[in-house]
């Protein structure tokens, strides 16, 4: 009853909805491994989405917009990092404040300005795009998607194989021990937040100048929180985190596709679906004791 074409459409929209999550999740994953619980990933994505559209409109280049999105993510990561891992202000409070601030600010700015629509170009890969069912969803994409092919392994390598990553993991598990070993705990956490900011910014910018081509109010609609849920779902392992992103992306795609397929459901209920899924996933997968032991705990030399 559901045609192959429909499946292909749902798959393609699922993948497109997964991409922004995957970028941000690579960042959030690395930050959390360093013990930095980064709630402000939502602010990073939303701020970057706005910034990319505004910059693209001003310069006429969607690619410049993408770069601007990364810079805004970095800026928010820098602010968050310095407030919580230099001045030792509660990281959750800062995250929530930043999220509210960026939401309010972008909502205001979008009402007082108008932007031209720009979108990054599409790349379709010959031969591969002709594979039935998955060909079109996987191999006809906006070009930034293919950055993931580099960024995912790079993130993994940084965390699991590089010295920087070894130190990040040490800092996320036992910061006191890392400190006496000579690792600058809060510096590593600030650096991790910068990485997270850059990637979450890329995710948000991709959503705006990649997928949609414009900015609308609260366009990330809690995707930052979904990313945090994906990292928990993934039990702080990168592969499972990305599977989590795909799951949430597909759920989102189903929401959009079901009415088109003739299945009528209350639309408000459908909007809730991915979040409900996130909640359920956390319920079943959260308690695995894989969490970095110092996640969300501030570090101050000399305490304990």
């Amino acid at each position: 009853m559901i045609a192959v074409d429909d499946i292909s459409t749902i798959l393609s929209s699922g993948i497109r909805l997964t991409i922004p999550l995957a970028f941000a999740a690579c960042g959030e994953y690395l930050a959390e491994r360093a013990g930095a619980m980064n709630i402000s990933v939502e602010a990073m994505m939303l701020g970057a989405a706005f910034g990319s559209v505004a910059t693209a409109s001003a310069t006429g280049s969607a690619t410049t917009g993408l770069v601007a999105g990364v810079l805004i993510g970095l800026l928010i990561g820098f602010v968050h990092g310095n407030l919580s891992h230099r001045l030792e202000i509660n990281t959750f409070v800062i995250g929530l404040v930043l999220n509210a601030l960026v939401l309010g600010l972008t909502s205001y700015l979008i009402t007082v300005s108008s932007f031209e629509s720009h979108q990054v170009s599409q790349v379709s890969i010959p031969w591969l795009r002709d594979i039935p069912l998955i060909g079109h969803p996987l191999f006809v994409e906006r070009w930034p998607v293919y950055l993931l092919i580099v960024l995912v392994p790079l993130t993994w390598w940084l965390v699991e194989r590089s010295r920087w990553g070894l130190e990040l993991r040490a800092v996320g598990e036992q910061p006191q021990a890392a400190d006496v070993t000579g690792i600058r705990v809060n510096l590593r956490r600030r650096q991790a937040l910068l990485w997270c900011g850059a990637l979450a910014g890329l995710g948000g910018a991709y959503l705006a100048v990649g997928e949609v081509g414009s900015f609308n109010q609260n366009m990330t609609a809690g995707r930052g929180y979904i990313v945090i849920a994906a990292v928990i779902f993934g039990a702080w392992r990168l592969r499972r985190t990305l599977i989590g992103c795909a799951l949430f992306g597909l759920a989102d795609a189903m929401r959009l596709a079901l009415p088109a397929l003739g299945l009528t459901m209350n639309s408000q209920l459908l909007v809730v679906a991915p979040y409900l899924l996130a909640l359920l996933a956390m319920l079943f997968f959260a308690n695995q004791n894989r969490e970095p032991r110092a996640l969300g705990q501030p570090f101050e030399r000399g305490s304990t």
Partner: protein
Amino acid sequence: MTEDERARELTPPSAPALRLRGISKSYGPVVACDAVDLAVHQGEIHGLLGENGAGKSTLMKILLGLVQRDAGTILHHDGPVDIGSPQEAVALGIGMVHQHFSLINPLTVWENVILGDTGKIDKGAACDQVRDVSQRYGLPIDPLAKVERLSAGERQRVELIKCLRRDPSVLILDEPTSVLTQAESAELFGVLRHVVRSENRAVILISHKLAEITAATDRVTVLRKGKVVFQSATAETGPQELARQMVGREVSLGSEAAALGLLPVEPPRTGESGTGKVETSVAALRLRGLTVTVDGVRVLSDLDLDVAPGEIVGLYGVEGNGQSNLGDVLSGLVLPDSGSVEISGRPVDLNRPGALHAAGLGIVPEDRHASGVVLDMSVAENLVMKSLNAVSGRAFVSRRKTHEVARRLAAEFNIVTPSMDTPVRSLSGGNQQRVVLARELSAGPLVLVAAQPTHGLDVGAIEDMYRRLRDVASGGVAVLLISTELEEVMALSSRIAVISSGRITGVLSTGEATAERLGMLVGGVAA
């Protein structure tokens, strides 16, 4: 050691590896180090002796760049140096084996060993280096093992390997034997002797145990209240002198030996009801088949233990063998997987919060700051916390009654405090511990569990605690003393149960307990 060797050590060679001049450090009004002078020479083990809070740890933190000094100079091979960070300390060749907090448990041995280095990671080379160092010093370890799976002794080896791989000229060890069995301690001191004699390094051994200092060091410095009060070649002094310097008054080694970390000459009798009555009377505290799993690791397995009214049973073992988990179970903090706790023959429903307290079990918990007292609440509030019904009406807590009770308990237990409204945080460790003890005993318990009751206390406070525990037992309360200090257990208990890897490996009466037999049991070998 021959006479020649000893003579050579007594005339220290040329320039000291490390010299401290007038090092001072204050935390607000508290002076931790007061113009400390110290010279550590190559080729010798320098003992740093002092009570808790004497300033030993602060001094070492200054050497490691973890704390910045207020005044004074540090000379390294006669050149003044500034140690602003742990990295700079490493660069100067100062390495430390920490008492706690230095290995990252989820990482492997080789990852831990190279942590803090710079440059590209080379796993193969790192593993080879670990094997190399471990062979050279006779410290067998698998470089690929995860630290969380290692025993305390093995972790200590990793710490040593991590330090020695960096070829330090000065090696600092902070209370290194607190988590080790006697055999492991012997191994450690063997390695230390080797690095000092054959490799001409300088070692600083920090301890509050007299026996350890007199046995293992060449020179000794005693710190008291942040000041250097005594320095000597170890051979020219003795336990009596060192004890006097450390405490600051004449002490009789007979009665206070345990508090100073020396085995008592003869184990004192504790109370009238000793081992003989245990079989006949109903046990006040009966533990059966207690099994606890934490993070997938079985920390207590099928643990049985009885304590009769009026006796003190010492649960002795090296730190990390399940005794703190037992403390958690008896505090009601952890629910065991299986097993039962009976108090005077009645099983206690561990699912119900407060059931143990209601059944008549009082506890002096191991970590008094985390679960013994509420630091920012007043002395009075802490004292009545577990018996609020007695000081409140229908809805409100009576301030008058609270203070009445608190004043009575403070007088009875010699709690020194400016007022009943003073926050417990500003009391000394000994007085905080008295607050806990007073509160627990005021409920009239049948059983008192004292977990590491003298940790972090000074000698006076330790003696006081010992006296009170003996009094409690002779009043008919069953006392379970959980301790990692052999001397403490020997001095107080009538029976000693040894715990190793979460099991009781043997129960001895104090009379038949010798250091050797206990040592074997601690190592998990039935004696």
